[in-house]
């Protein structure tokens, strides 16, 4: 009798423990989702009413004058993304090709490891390096320096996704090309890369989505600019730095514009992510 109640007690204790721990897991999932909802709720709630056509077509106004926009910052962000791509994509994609096609050796392992290391380097540190590499020799803050910093930040993502996507191309494709007597480099460029194209595009978009919101490496490379500028050897405005400056400012109007800018930035990044989802989905449907 006694032993029966003992096992019963243990049984209920185990049941209770099971219920308790499972509830904790559910609760933590709920808590993890809350900040996402809060951030989107606030960004849309506070930013949406400040967005109108002027916001995209006008320049920032001086303090005290309400209204105005950030056309220059939007343009600046696009230019910086372009410069970053010019710096980062060739290095990233070619290194990715090396790793996928020739990198099954010790040196490949080392490069792969270094790519991982590079992806862990804080963006602010990359900014410092871009400062010593570009700003100091040019004696000037410039869009180019910002582009170099962003380009370095793109490299790990582009390299690893390119490698993985090129690896996915079946070897029979390569063998078919070689069997026709096409040299290997042409097989790689014309057959393998073309097959992996959507995959590599995904990696590129992913890297762009990552760097579009980067602020820290731009603070002392691209610096920021309150005027219209497209010159790559001059300081240039960007949405993230704009948000930073306007969020810190003690003017309510500016703070509200910071929210609006954040909304535009999130919107831009969402477009990139949705394109990625679209590209990958149509890819898998084809297969």
């Amino acid at each position, binding site marked *: 009798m006694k032993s029966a109640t003992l096992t019963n007690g243990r049984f209920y204790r185990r049941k209770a*423990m*099971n219920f308790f*721990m*499972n509830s*904790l*897991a*559910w609760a*933590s*999932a709920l808590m*993890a*989702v809350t*900040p*996402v909802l*809060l*951030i989107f709720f*606030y*960004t849309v709630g506070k930013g949406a009413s400040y967005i109108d056509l002027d916001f995209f077509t006008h320049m920032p106004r001086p303090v005290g004058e309400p209204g105005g926009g950030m056309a220059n910052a939007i343009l600046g962000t696009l230019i910086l993304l372009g410069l970053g791509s010019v710096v980062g994509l*060739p*290095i990233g994609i*070619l*290194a990715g090709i*090396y790793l996928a*096609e*020739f990198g099954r050796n010790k*040196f490949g392992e080392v490069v792969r490891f*270094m*790519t*991982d*290391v*590079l992806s*862990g*380097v*804080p*963006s*602010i*540190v*990359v*900014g*410092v*390096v871009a*400062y*010593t*590499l570009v700003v100091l020799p040019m004696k000037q803050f410039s869009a180019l320096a910002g582009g170099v910093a962003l380009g370095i930040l793109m*490299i790990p993502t582009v390299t690893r996704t390119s490698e993985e996507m090129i690896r996915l191309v079946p070897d029979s494709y390569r063998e078919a090309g070689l069997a026709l007597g096409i*040299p*290997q*480099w*042409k097989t790689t460029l014309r057959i393998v890369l073309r097959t992996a194209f959507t995959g590599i595009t995904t990696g590129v978009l992913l890297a762009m989505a990552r760097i579009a*919101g*980067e*602020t*820290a490496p731009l*603070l002392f490379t691209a610096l920021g600019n309150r005027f219209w500028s497209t010159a790559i050897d001059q300081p240039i405005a960007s949405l*993230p730095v704009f948000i930073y400056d306007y*969020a810190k400012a003690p003017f309510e109007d500016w*703070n509200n514009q910071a*929210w609006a800018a*954040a909304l535009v930035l*999130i919107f831009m*990044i969402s477009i990139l992510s949705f394109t990625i989802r679209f590209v990958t989905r149509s890819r898998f449907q084809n297969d």
Partner: protein
Amino acid sequence: MEEETIVENPRSQEQTGDVVSVGSDLLSGVTDKRRVRKYNLGDLLFKNLTVLFAVVVLMLVLLMAFEMYDGSKLSFQEFGTGFVTSSSWDPVEEDYGALPFMYGTIVSSLLALLIALPLSVGVAIFLSELAPSWVERPVSFMVELLAGVPSIVYGLWGIFVLVPWIRKTVEPFLSDHLGFLPLFRGAPYGFGMLAAGMILAVMILPIIASISRDVLRSVPRLQREAALAIGATQWETTRIVLRDSRSGILGATMLGLGRAIGETMAVTMVIGNRPEISFSLFDPGYTMASVIANEFTEATTEMYINALIEVAFILFVITIVVNMLARLLVWSATRKWK
């Protein structure tokens, strides 16, 4: 041996018969240097081009280290190891020590881990063991969304939503109930170590959660079935899965730690930016990343810039060590079952 003779002297074999001569033609096509070049020039160029860019990636890390070493020579010579033990940061007197920043970085990151780790493991368990797929998918999506929000937007949200909430609700509550601890003393500013730790926790949660989820999923189904078959409850089964994924979760945690250590904008916007070492989490602090972000453009003297670059160098070394350990752990953990 026979094949070698064919290769060396293809013509002599042509007389011996039809079958052999076909074989010898093929072989001679590959090896006869007069007719076919051993390497295609295009192949040689293309391969070496890709090798070159692989070397660029490799050299980039070394170049970064060198640039920062070179850029911080002055302060390294002036302060030596005193740089990491001194807590004075005085641009007027040109006296620099990085201890308050290192303290701020370590404390804010550990605080973030303390908050984020249990939550992330909970989320990972939920996603991999418990949730039906119609719940799992949207939650996974939202967690990934959380990872995609730029740091600056977290900072904006931190300034205008999180900090006021901490000032009005969290800090009064903590000082009322746990005020006997030195951790929770002082005036509730809102801006400070606690705010930094909390915002970092939100930011690293998706990283730790999604990697831990993958690690949990890599545990073979048989482990769970065996446990369930001998009458274990869901939680007891989960415990076994957790025990098998310890090192992977540790690796995920280290990756989160690496991210927290290097995180700049959000922290800079909420930590209060005061280079002091205080045990109270209510007090403002400063981190290595945020001092660089705040003062780099203002640094006017050579020594000032050198000192800031040295801070960046220390940050670089710390994050690299943390990341290497993390990669090693995650790698060995997911490889275990293959």
